[in-house]
């Protein structure tokens, strides 16, 4: 019975997925009904996840660990999932016949990611990450419309498969070096052999799969095309929920090295600087807001890496904090995009013109989201950056922090361009009015309050992430 409790959130999402699988067999689709079902199930899923958030224990021959670290991420992912599902009421980007499949794949993907953050055995990890990846490979090309949207689906698949291949090779090397596939045992063995090239290469290649998901340079190439090519809701899902899983797994794998590998730290520093700089510089010239956010997500992957590469629990806690903040602020921006482009087209930055008149509330949510992404206080984004940088300086990486801050200043430019569009520009033509329902109003206030609360009162959530980071070891 206690084992059952440990696996409850996952079981619940399996159930949800099965239900939508059955719905997908029906001849006459009922999109509105599916949406109601999905909302109820996702809400219940969130409650179940929160209820089991203090569970601890091992499952499945010690392949599966339920601890504070995994449960915090599961709550974040359940939260992200319900937000995405709530915003899927219109779902104009996907053919109505496929709505049941859409919800099915969303539930499967969340399930896979929940399993991912709890897995502590390399093959289980691999299976989980593939399950989540394949759901996304199917979700991306589901978009209705032009042929070229398929192209991005294929691109995503090809790069994803390559990353998986690298990851498998890395896992085999780790097994060769450590003679085990269990992460807790690897943590004990690996620090003693970390100076061997095979160990470092294995670890880095194993990380490649997660770098792909988090869109860390040089595994970022899919991001702009997929963000642009997938329908808005799927992009939101990729940009929020799947990033949580990737961040969690990079933290878990970085923890394996035991914090004593200069070569790996150097590599992570290089990747982090490359991601931040590349992402921010290319984002400067984007016209499509989803492409812009794709490049900004590459940059944010770099910031999260700064926290992780300290390889101590303070840094992991900071990275977790940053990930949570990123979830909130990125969803704020995407929610506004989904609302403004409710017919499902790709929103250009200039189409946001005059948003402050069309919907002051959405404009405010967008502003808070953008300022959070840019790292301006008193938002959660700022406090996250502050904690990440503090952790890095605790290890003495002054130059890295300076580079990070210079990058934050560069990024401010393109966030201000979006802000300017919403608050300053006059629309060139008459845009249809933005319909703001009760749910969106509620979410706008909730996101703004959450962002500011986490930004100004970080103490409680920070001690939670610190406890979670300690449970890693």
């Amino acid at each position, binding site marked *: 019975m206690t084992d059952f409790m440990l696996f409850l959130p996952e079981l619940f999402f399996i159930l949800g997925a099965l239900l939508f699988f059955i719905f997908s067999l029906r001849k006459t689709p009922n999109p509105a009904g599916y949406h109601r079902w999905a909302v109820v199930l996702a809400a219940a899923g969130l409650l179940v996840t929160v209820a089991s958030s203090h569970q601890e224990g091992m499952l499945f021959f010690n392949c599966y660990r339920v601890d504070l670290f995994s449960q915090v991420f599961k709550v974040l992912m359940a939260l992200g999932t319900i937000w995405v599902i709530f915003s899927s009421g219109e779902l104009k980007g996907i053919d109505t016949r496929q709505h049941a499949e859409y919800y099915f794949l969303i539930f499967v993907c969340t399930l896979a990611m929940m399993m991912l953050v709890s897995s502590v055995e390399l093959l289980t990890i691999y299976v989980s990450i593939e399950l989540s990846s394949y759901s996304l490979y199917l979700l991306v090309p589901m978009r209705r419309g032009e042929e070229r949207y398929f192209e991005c689906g294929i691109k995503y698949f090809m790069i994803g498969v390559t990353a998986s291949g690298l990851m498998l090779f890395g896992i085999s090397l780790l097994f060769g070096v450590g003679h085990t596939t269990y992460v807790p045992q690897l943590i004990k063995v690996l620090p003693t052999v970390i100076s061997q090239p095979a160990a470092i290469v294995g670890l880095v290649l194993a990380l490649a799969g997660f770098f792909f998901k988090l869109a860390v340079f040089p595994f970022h190439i899919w991001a702009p095309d997929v963000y642009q090519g997938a329908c808005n809701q799927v992009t939101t899902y990729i940009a929020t929920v799947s990033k949580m899983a990737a961040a969690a797994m990079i933290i878990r794998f970085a923890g394996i090295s035991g914090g004593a590998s200069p070569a790996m730290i150097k590599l992570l520093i290089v990747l982090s600087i490359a991601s931040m700089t590349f992402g921010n510089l290319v984002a400067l010239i984007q016209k499509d807001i989803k492409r812009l956010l794709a490049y900004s997500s590459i940059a944010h992957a770099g910031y999260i890496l700064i926290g992780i590469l300290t390889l101590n629990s*303070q840094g992991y*806690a900071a990275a977790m904090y940053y990930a949570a903040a990123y979830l909130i602020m990125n969803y704020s921006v995407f929610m506004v995009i989904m609302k403004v482009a409710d017919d499902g087209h790709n929103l250009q930055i200039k189409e946001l013109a005059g948003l*402050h008149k069309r919907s002051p509330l959405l404009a405010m949510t967008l502003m808070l989201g953008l*300022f959070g992404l840019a790292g*301006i*206080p*008193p938002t959660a984004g*700022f406090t996250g950056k*502050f*904690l990440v*940088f*503090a952790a890095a*300086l*605790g290890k*003495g990486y*002054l130059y890295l*922090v*300076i580079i990070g*801050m*210079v990058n*934050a*200043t560069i990024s*401010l*430019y393109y966030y*201000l361009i979006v*802000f*300017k569009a919403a*608050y*300053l520009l006059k629309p060139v033509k008459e845009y249809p009015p933005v319909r703001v329902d009760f749910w969106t109003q509620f979410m706008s206030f909730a996101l703004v309050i959450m962002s500011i609360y986490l930004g100004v009162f*970080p*103490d409680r959530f*920070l*001690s939670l992430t*610190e406890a979670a980071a300690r449970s890693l070891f």
Partner: protein
Amino acid sequence: MTAMNMAGFPILTTILMTTIVGLLVIIFIPPEKTKLIKQVSLASASLGLVLCLWLYHAYDFQKGGLQFVERVLWVKSIGIYWFNGVDGINLPMMLLTSVVLFTGVWTMWELEHRVKEFFALMFLLVAGVYGVFMSMDLFWIFVWYDVSLFPMYPLIAIWGGTRKEYGAMKLTLYLLAGSAFILPAILFLWAKGGGHTFDLFMLQKIGFTPYVQNVAFLMLYLGFGILAAVWPFHTWSPVGHVAAPTAVSMIHAGVLMKLGAYGVLRIGMTLCPQGAVYWSHLMALLGTIGIIYGAIAGLGQTDLKYVIGYSSVSHMGIVGLGLATLSVNGINGAVFQMFAHGIMTALFFSSVGFIYDRTHTKIIPELGGLSKTMPVASSFFIFAALAGIGVPLMASFWAELLVLTAAVKAFPVAGILACMGMILSALFMLRVVQRTFYGEKNPRWEHIPDVSKFLAVPRVILMSCILFFGLFPKVMLDVIQSTVIPFVTRF
């Protein structure tokens, strides 16, 4: 310095809250009720003013040190404290902020375009400014510093004038690039101090190694120096001032630029005294170049706001030079100059703002002979110009006198050059006054009404401030000195 009396009533947080509550109330007023928004704004600004005046009155300068302390542990694991207090350095700054906010809100009474957002953003900005001045915790100083900067972008880009979008973007990016140095410096000091406190006074006791001090001070000086318009990082300042609407120019030039100099003094010179000694020649050099450069650049301008923008560069050079001397007189003068310049620039911008509102031009040759058609408005500007020159009986006279005597003693060459810079600045101020207000009367402006009694009030308040502290400099110098005398013993 460490004398702390725990006041029962958190007066400082209350002052901060006057702006934040004002902001929240404004957010929930429907945008079409502009009159109500303005009344709420003025009410909350005047509440802040009254509290600051009381604070100034209640501060015991004979005892000196940090008073009205509020200290609560905020984030345990990395040691952030909600730690506020006032001493002789930030007390004049608080007073300055409240006066400029009050007069600024009053000056904008005729605003009609997007009123609600304007006042909301202005209160956000001022909340940041109050926060920086009262905080004694590095985390909060940085937070409030950034909070005070980013509202500048919409404030200039929406309500601004000449090349507003360019000016706004340039200003915002420049100032936030400054914080790209400040945040690493703060975290560097925190990490070197053991990584368990951001409390300024606890860090001060640690005594950093000379290397740490030199590195951190340079970063802080560059970061805050951008906001203090230290030459060669001043280029955002005239452009931004020209683009900004009147009250924003007032707050920006009057108060926000002081944050830069204050940051150098409060964080840099407090935590890195040896770093300050090490870099003092650089500070003196850049300060002197600023004084002379501002005056020369001002000579060539034809736009009234550009003239004031460059005079600000010059006057902030005086503050920089005063800090560089690391002596009692120099720092006293620098702090006094921050106050005096703040009030004076606010008066400058508020009178130019009025002239611009009425004539829709601020090009000097077009204005000509304005004192005959708008005698009252002109007198405000001329009064500010006299204060800018540093005529005796004006507050800035004492400030400049103190700084220059200290500078001549500490850096004879720079000091004498700075004195010559003052003559240049007198020359360019008088030229501007002569060409704008005297000479041929321009018939275009004949029928334009002068300042109404209602709109004259804020300007008169600013004028009387300048005059009061010019006649009784002791009222302020006693307060400043009480902190500066123990402060300089560390160098």
